[in-house]
């Protein structure tokens, strides 16, 4: 297990290196070399950039090596457009917001998906199954920004109707601010997980070991928890890595629509303002974060499934 973890971590580092290189290459493909010092907004930033990135030296290998070196130290440089602010500072401010939102959304999607999926499987082809699967199809087919808009509309109407501000429509700060965005953010993934859990559960329901458990006289509820749910959840855990990636991605829209000062919005704004250091920093940081999440999910899976853990 320890060797496996170590191997995965080394693979992860190599992957992050690849992401950083690709980011660097993409940024230097921009016509007119955006990292050229003439793009800097003020003299002080220009000098800072030249010193920091060796902009007077050739792109390859000097600038590339300087870039890799600073990335390896976890130093993402200074923002192009926000004077005297380091990219690290900006990320440090925005990331916890996105992380909280994402965590709540993942929690919501995973719990909802597993429970609803199990519910539909046990009630296969009966009313709860039909209703939930219809909603799941809607959840998969409707883009998240529509959910976001509908959610806001619903909150506006709710507040109008009740005559007081039950839930904030947008913004950030309290737990109430997180509720609706996280719900919207998790909805698509929840629909996807529900579907997966349902098919996984249907497979498990008819397995030999469930039959064995019933033949042993194990009560239905215990069969459900110990034998069916536990085994049906395993495939769901394997897709949790991609699901987290999807939720972080979805965060872009939700953060824009709900005016949440998270990393997604920071990135979109950086692109709009062509703040290249911030773009690069955010991309590499996100990439590394996702790689770490995928590794983490794999390790969790290994811990849950003895077949993986012990081999």
């Amino acid at each position, binding site marked *: 297990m320890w060797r496996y973890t170590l191997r995965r971590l080394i693979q992860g580092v190599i*992957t992050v290196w*690849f*992401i950083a290189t*690709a*980011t660097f290459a*993409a*940024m230097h*493909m*921009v*016509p*007119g070399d955006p990292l050229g010092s003439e793009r800097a907004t003020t003299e002080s930033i220009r000098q800072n950039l030249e010193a920091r990135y060796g902009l007077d030296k050739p792109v390859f290998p000097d600038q590339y090596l300087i870039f890799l070196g600073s990335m390896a130290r976890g130093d993402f440089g200074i923002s192009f457009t926000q004077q005297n602010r380091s990219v690290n500072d900006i990320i440090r401010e925005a990331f916890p917001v996105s992380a909280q939102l994402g965590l709540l959304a993942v929690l919501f999607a995973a719990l909802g998906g597993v429970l609803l999926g199990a519910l539909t499987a046990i009630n296969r082809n009966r009313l709860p199954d039909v209703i939930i699967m219809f909603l799941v*199809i*809607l959840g*998969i*087919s*409707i*883009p*998240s*920004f*529509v959910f976001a*808009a509908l959610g*806001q*509309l619903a909150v*506006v109407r709710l507040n109008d109707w009740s005559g007081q501000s039950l839930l904030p429509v947008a913004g950030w700060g309290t737990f109430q601010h997180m509720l609706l965005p996280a719900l919207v953010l998790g909805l698509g993934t929840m629909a996807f997980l529900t579907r997966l859990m349902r098919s996984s559960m249907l497979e498990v329901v008819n397995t030999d070991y469930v039959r064995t458990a019933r033949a042993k006289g194990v009560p239905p509820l215990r069969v459900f928890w110990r034998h069916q749910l536990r085994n049906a959840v395993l495939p769901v855990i394997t897709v949790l890595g991609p699901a987290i*990636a999807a939720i*972080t*991605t979805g965060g*872009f*829209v939700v953060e*824009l*629509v709900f005016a949440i000062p998270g990393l997604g919005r920071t*990135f*979109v704004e950086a*692109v*709009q303002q*062509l703040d290249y250091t911030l*773009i690069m920093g*955010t*991309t590499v940081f*996100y*990439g590394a974060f*996702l*790689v770490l999440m*995928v590794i983490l999910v794999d390790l969790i899976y290994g811990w849950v499934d003895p077949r993986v853990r012990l081999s």
Partner: protein
Amino acid sequence: MSNQARQLSAADFSPVSLRPDAQGIARPSQSYWQDAWRRLRRNRRAIASLWIVIFLLAFTLIGPLLWRVDPYAQNLDRISQPPSLAAQTLLVERGVQWEGVTLDDWPAGPSQAWLADPERGELPAPEGFEVVGDPHTLSVRLTWQPVPHAAGYQVYRNTYRPTAINELGLPLGETWAGNDVGYEDQLALTPSTYWYSITASDGLRESEQFVSIPVDVQLATTIDSALARGLIPSRDAAQAGDYVAMPANPFGTDYLGRDMLARLMYGARTSLFIGIAAPLLFVFFGTVYGAFAGFAGGRTDDFMMRIADFVIALPFLLFMILIRVASGIGPGESGIMPLLLALVVLSWPATARLVRGQILQIREEGYVQAARLLGARDHYLILRHMLPNTLGVILVTLTFAIPTAIFTEAFLSFIGMGVAPPVPSWGSMSNEGLKSMLNSPHELFFPALFISITVLAFNMLGDGLRDALDARMRSRE
């Protein structure tokens, strides 16, 4: 009935010769594709989806030929109109100024004594607040009874009935004399019902007493503008006060008065082009790549798959945007080709992995080994065994890739990083529609509906195809 109790004849016990049909039932054999098509046809949801897809393609390709409305033409007096079939406009002369209503026998302002009175009460709301003539989008004329001691009046407009002083809405303007009791609203309106409110002011302080009336405003066009837009053939063909027919907007208009139906059709071109072309390209590339890696095996395979793994690890949406930036597309510019390119560059590895897995699996199958033993060459194996047996999987992947690509386009356009206005795409239309969601929900609803229906149709078609093409399912039934 007991056996021995039955009386049986000797004939009952005469032997019967072996029946030839004892060897089992011969059923007519069906080819893989025949069988798959038969199964797909029985799947009602998949067939319905297939029809929806055909309808969408017709909507995109044939629609603009039938509905000849310019998707870019702005019509500022028909902004954010809800869907309607028939529409007509009232012709009016241009710029006829209304002189208003001024009462000669009424003082223009309050007396100094009244103003100086510290005990003076609040002015009441004017009485007799009413519309003069026909209210239309170019002009709404209002008049009311004067209020004693008033030195002027404030006119407000709102889209709903005001119930408190802070809900009167937009302050339109004011009159500067107590006997000036007429007001004309000439701010180009859209046809709807508005609530006009009025309050009196004694020159120092505005009263909180107000009166509101609803006004149904109908669409009006000046004769000059009607002529310019081709609504009437010549200046003599119509006169002020006539009604002429306007092109209908079955799906309403957007915030610039552009026809939603035409924009949806043109938007479908963008969305479906990206949604179908990109998957075709990356599924093709992924198939070739994966098949080559799987067939080559060994180190080549390892190396090729390691590259695919790297590409998969790239954060998808960030790199979609990054590639766009790298192609020199600035914010607010439309980049359909970079979007396509980015989709292809980032999406092929999943297909490559899948196809490689299939090829590796098929390579070990008994029938391929047997064919090899019989002396089959590589290209024969590929054409005869590997390709037909992976084609189903590839087709299913393609069908599921389409909704994903459509989603991605919509998503990027929505956050302003894909197709940008004025080029219509369902995503960019949703983006524009979001801003006016509260007042005219149809601007968000229709593009979102089209995205959802398309994604739904392709997803269900994919489900149907997967069930129909899955060879494991053939033996059941």
